[in-house]
């Protein structure tokens, strides 16, 4: 099946890109002035101690050797050891990754679920009040810093109204005994939802606004396409035209935009985690930079890129699923 082959192709194409990412990150980190070991040991360290630690972290070997070693280890899921935590980088990332993924997936789900209907309605009621309001709101939404939205939401809902918690995420599959205020599995879900709501809104607003805009403009464009006119000329009901004939085609640019939004979303996740004090990868990379814990910085950068690339591949495959021209390349 062509779609399968297309997916396979995309995955294969991603590998050299990821390799390049590792190379760039490696180059960046090693371009850094200052030596992490010296930083760890403080000013004017004992030279012998420096040498020992250097050897321990393999910093005494030439660059290309270190790079190769890093790659080899990477393939075996070993990203080195965190200087600060004195634990494998992989472990730290594994601890933090679920939170970040939960945050991102839920915010995208929220964004898509609200933006698509909103955009379609906006297109259908073009230039009427609903449309104008939607357009203004999306413009504002796209221009608002997500961390500020988070702050405002916390002020409103956590402090003033006291309804929702302001920090941390509870994973929905956590055991009830580990979650305060939850006696059962269902209770855990409820608590998890409460913790997730504000961060999800905070991160998802920007995506929602961006998707609404493109959904609207895409629908408008498609609605003036010839095949829509033809369907109308053959007596297809307006509702069916909207739902079936126009909708599918209109999603193509939307999917493209979602792919482009991924990079902003990941950045937004880093900031949202900071605002809500969520122990995800975002906070990990930020604190690691402050501590100059380079193995962690490298590892998290790579994993972020990996998440991004996977996201892009998923959107590409979704695009190809809808648009047969992508996978069925053959022409008569």
């Amino acid at each position, binding site marked *: 099946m062509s779609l399968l082959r297309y997916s396979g192709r995309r995955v294969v194409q991603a590998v050299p890109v990821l390799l390049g*990412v590792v190379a760039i990150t490696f180059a960046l980190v090693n371009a850094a002035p200052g030596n992490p070991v010296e930083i760890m040991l403080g000013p004017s360290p004992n030279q012998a101690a420096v040498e020992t630690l250097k050897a321990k972290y393999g910093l005494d070997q030439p660059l290309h050797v270190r790079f190769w070693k890093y790659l080899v280890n990477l393939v075996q899921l070993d990203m080195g050891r965190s200087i600060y935590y004195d634990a494998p980088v992989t472990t730290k990332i594994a601890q933090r990754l679920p939170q970040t993924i939960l945050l991102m997936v839920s915010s995208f789900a929220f964004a898509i679920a609200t933006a698509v209907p909103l955009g379609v309605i906006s297109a259908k009621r073009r230039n009427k009040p609903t449309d104008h309001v939607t357009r203004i709101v999306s413009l504002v939404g796209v221009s608002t810093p997500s961390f500020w939205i988070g702050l405002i939401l916390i002020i409103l809902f956590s402090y003033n109204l006291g309804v929702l918690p302001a920090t941390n995420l509870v994973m929905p599959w956590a055991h009830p005994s580990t979650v305060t205020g939850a006696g059962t599995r269902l209770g855990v879900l409820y608590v998890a939802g409460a913790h997730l709501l504000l961060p999800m809104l905070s991160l998802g607003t920007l995506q929602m606004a961006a998707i609404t805009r493109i959904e609207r403009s895409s629908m408008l464009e498609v609605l003036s396409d010839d095949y829509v006119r033809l369907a109308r000329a053959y007596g297809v009901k307006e509702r069916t035209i909207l739902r079936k004939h126009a909708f599918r085609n209109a999603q193509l640019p939307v999917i493209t935009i979602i792919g482009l939004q991924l990079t902003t979303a990941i950045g937004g996740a880093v900031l949202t985690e900071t605002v809500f004090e969520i122990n995800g990868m975002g906070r990990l990379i930020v604190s690691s930079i402050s501590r100059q814990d380079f193995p962690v*910085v490298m590892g998290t950068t790579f994993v972020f890129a990996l998440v991004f690339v996977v996201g892009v591949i998923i959107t590409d495959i979704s695009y190809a699923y809808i648009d047969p021209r992508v996978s069925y390349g053959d022409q008569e």
Partner: protein
Amino acid sequence: MATTHSDSETIGSESVDDAEQSVSSVEARVGWRYTLAQVRKDPTAFAGFIIIAVASVVAVVTTIDAVVFEYLAQYQVFAQFGVEKYWLAKTLWMSPTAEPAGTPTLLPPVGMENTFGQGTWAHPLGTDDRGRDILLRLIYGTRIAILVGVLATAIGLVGGMVIGAVSGYYGGWTDDVLMRLAETLYAIPFLVLVLAFIAAFGRSITFAMIGVGVASIPKFARLIRSRVVSVREDEYVEAAKAAGVRDRNIILRHVIPNSFAPVLVQATLQVGTAIIIIAGLSFLGFGIQPPTPSWGQMLSVSRNYMIQNPWFSVWPGLCILITVVAFNMFGDGLRDALDPRLNN
């Protein structure tokens, strides 16, 4: 309309250059006036333009007050007149970074009251955690937002133009290599890339700015490259080539001016993005360091006092919002003004 060649026999560089100039100046001239007129017609775009203009003026004035005066203060010639950093602010009101003794901290905006006291007109939007006036600091925060945003975008634009133009024009393996590089850079999420950059080079605003600039190069490079590739096929480039014009000149005088439209739109929108990212970096502590006022940093501080003085958190974010909305409105307006012509 073709220019009149004096002699067709003198295929020296002069007559060819004349041809080039008149062709390119015709192309460029048709663009700007019409575009600006279109933008003026569009109310949102025009509003955006006004806000940007105002903000820019504020940014320039405050920069002069902060940086230029500080520099001039070194010289006796000026110092004797009392010229110093924040001279303008101090004369008109007060220094944005001073912490005057006795000023209450965390005052709410005028007309409201909180645990720290009553809002007053002396500090219309309230005071921050060190008793500094918020409104004044917001005004001076414009400087960082606009300047850094514009400079960072400029870096991305110039870098992207060079790479994109070369890549698109020459094709072949230059193109392949450069685009692979761009793709790889692009695969690292924007903020993460900037963070890695900052991690490597240092936590100052300069590196933040350069980092944002470098991270935005791939987007511009791709845009320019696709325009270059399509323009490259156009006839007047072929004509110029046939007339023996050097590659560099072709790129500079024909290809780039005609790629300008979408690039300008992208650049305007990118400034908005850059402003948000820079604010985010300041929020994380990686941007401008206190006491210099910056919106992101103010938001970061306000976090600690969310309960006591929630209004402190509102204003800096609002400033970011308004500024970015302005750039988006203007950028959208530019895109609409340029689009139908592009399709023609």
